[in-house]
């Protein structure tokens, strides 16, 4: 099957030049959208009676080994009633901040998936209600592990990693949100309270 999905011409009719290009790889249709129009296009794909992509299978990102190629954010969509799949991509300009609109308001399932992409690639999903690290801890300071510039063993030496792990206060494993409920917040060291109050993440002194 090398024919792209019929959703592609429909998207072109509805969104015109926001649809950059479409290809087929291993039988799956891939549509490239302009990053700023992604939210509108996905909302349309979800609700349009002829598309009905009601299920968000996955959100992830791809960075290529070729440093010239832009980082891509990938949405895997599925229509349960129509039994159809569509892969939507947005190529992010490497010279600008890595930002795409969040689709959390469309699918609850996007919540953790977008947090993971933010954690692993540093892509900021604007409009996400609670965009913080998910797999790495909140004060993780080495960067975003799945970026190609991130060495397999991490940026810091093993000694530095050990030192930071031993120096971390247990309170650092609670989010500001949780600490503000707990009475323990007032018993924290002053500098930590201030850091948490500023909403600071990823810094260990």
């Amino acid at each position, binding site marked *: 099957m090398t024919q792209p999905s019929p959703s592609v011409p429909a998207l072109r009719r509805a969104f015109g030049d926001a649809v950059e290009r479409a290809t087929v790889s291993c039988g*799956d249709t891939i549509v490239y959208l302009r990053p700023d129009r992604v939210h509108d296009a996905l909302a349309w794909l979800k609700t349009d009676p002829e598309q009905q992509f*009601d299920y968000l*299978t996955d959100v992830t990102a791809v960075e290529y080994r070729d440093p010239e190629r832009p980082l891509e954010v990938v949405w895997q969509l599925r229509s349960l009633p129509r039994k159809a799949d569509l892969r939507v991509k947005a190529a992010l300009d490497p010279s600008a901040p890595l930002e795409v609109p969040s689709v959390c308001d469309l699918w*609850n399932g996007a*919540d953790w998936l977008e947090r993971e992409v933010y954690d692993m690639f540093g892509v900021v999903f604007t409009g996400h209600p609670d965009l913080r690290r998910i797999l790495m801890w909140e004060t993780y300071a080495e960067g975003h592990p799945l970026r190609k510039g991130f060495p397999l063993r991490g940026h810091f030496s093993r000694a530095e990693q050990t030192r930071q792990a031993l120096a971390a206060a247990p309170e650092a494993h609670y989010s500001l949100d949780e600490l503000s409920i707990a009475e323990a917040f007032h018993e924290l060291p002053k500098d930590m309270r201030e850091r948490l109050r500023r909403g600071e993440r990823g810094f260990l002194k």
Partner: protein
Amino acid sequence: MSERTVEYTLATPGLDARGRVVDVPLGLGFKDTHEYRAAGQFDESFGAEHMLVNIGPQHPATHGVLRLVIELDGETVIRVIPHIGYLHSGFEKLGEYRQYNQIIPLTDRTDYLSPMANNVCLALAVEKLMGLEITERCRVLRVIACEMSRIISHLVWLGTTGIDLGAFTPFLWSFQERERIYNLQEAWTGARLTTSVTRVGGMMADVPEGWSAGLREFCRTFPATLVEVDTMFTRNAIWIGRTQGVGVLTREEAINGSLSGPMLRASGVDFDVRKDRPYLDYETYDFDVPIGEHGDIYDRYRVRLEEMFQSTRILEQALDRLDRLEGAPVNVSDPRVILPPKSRAMSDMEAMIYHFKQVMEGVKPPVGEAYMGIENPKGELGYYFVSDGTAKPVRWRIRPPSFLNLSALPRMCVGALLSDVIAINASVDIVMGEIDR
């Protein structure tokens, strides 16, 4: 006879001033709250503060290194904040530094309760990337691997969930049955947990002689245990009380939250990857997909229990096909992915070149990308590969089913009791190796 009616009062025995035994009532006393309030004896702030309870990461009821921070009003859950990542191993990053066949051992360690199904998904994803058509015997063997994994994974779920809700006996039954599958798994792959049973284009090994008789015996006797579990749980008043109407997700919520597998089907969504996107000839097997209607813990239990019966049915059919395909080749005869026989590699120039290229360079899929989703015991496991034509993937993405199923936990727990959080968390059937990867 009516005089023998016994009345229990909420009281503890005590002594009065004259040394006579009396009942001292529990609680504040007989006065109503407003009487205390009038007298200025009532602390208005009593009970107004929310409590923060931390469960895990080292807690048996969280099924792994999951940590839940729970905000409580009395015993009612206001919100749940899950913290994950304690088992993060960077599998996706490691995969970018390995050849495709070398990634298979990593997949064992993601969802370690169903390693063989993960191996199958990886091989299928790379084969989709390369456009390879595998042999029929290989497809049958992989179906057997997937369904065996489904049974052992659901048995672990059944046993541990029973323990979480106070039923110990079915845990012993289910682990006894699981042990029998593990023995078969060990006889086939040489390992109980880290099976690494597939290869791109085929299998690591065919099943040994006499093996299928052992699996047939298992299929014959296993349903009896399930019937016993069914007798113990399905109409058990305690079980029903703890599970019915608890942790409810509606159909719309389940779809919106990207749930999959038994969690999705218990909410009444008729979606099973085996039926809707058939792979490995699943469309030719005769089996039913159980669908729940209430989306609560009880329906998830019923769905998983029935899935085990159905998996046994599929295994029986697959074993018949395996007998029919006795002696048929397992691996594809494609020198790009499967090593030529050693005898040919030592005598035939072309075979030796292929042998050398495969060992030194590895399997090289063409430039492209492929997403392959299969119905794992926990839900839809998806492997998404991006290849730039070299022997190592540019990106290996695991779409972890229990990661997405767990992300619905905060929404399921709000308004429930603290003890229900344990039951709801158990019903999600998480495995942290896969969530944290």
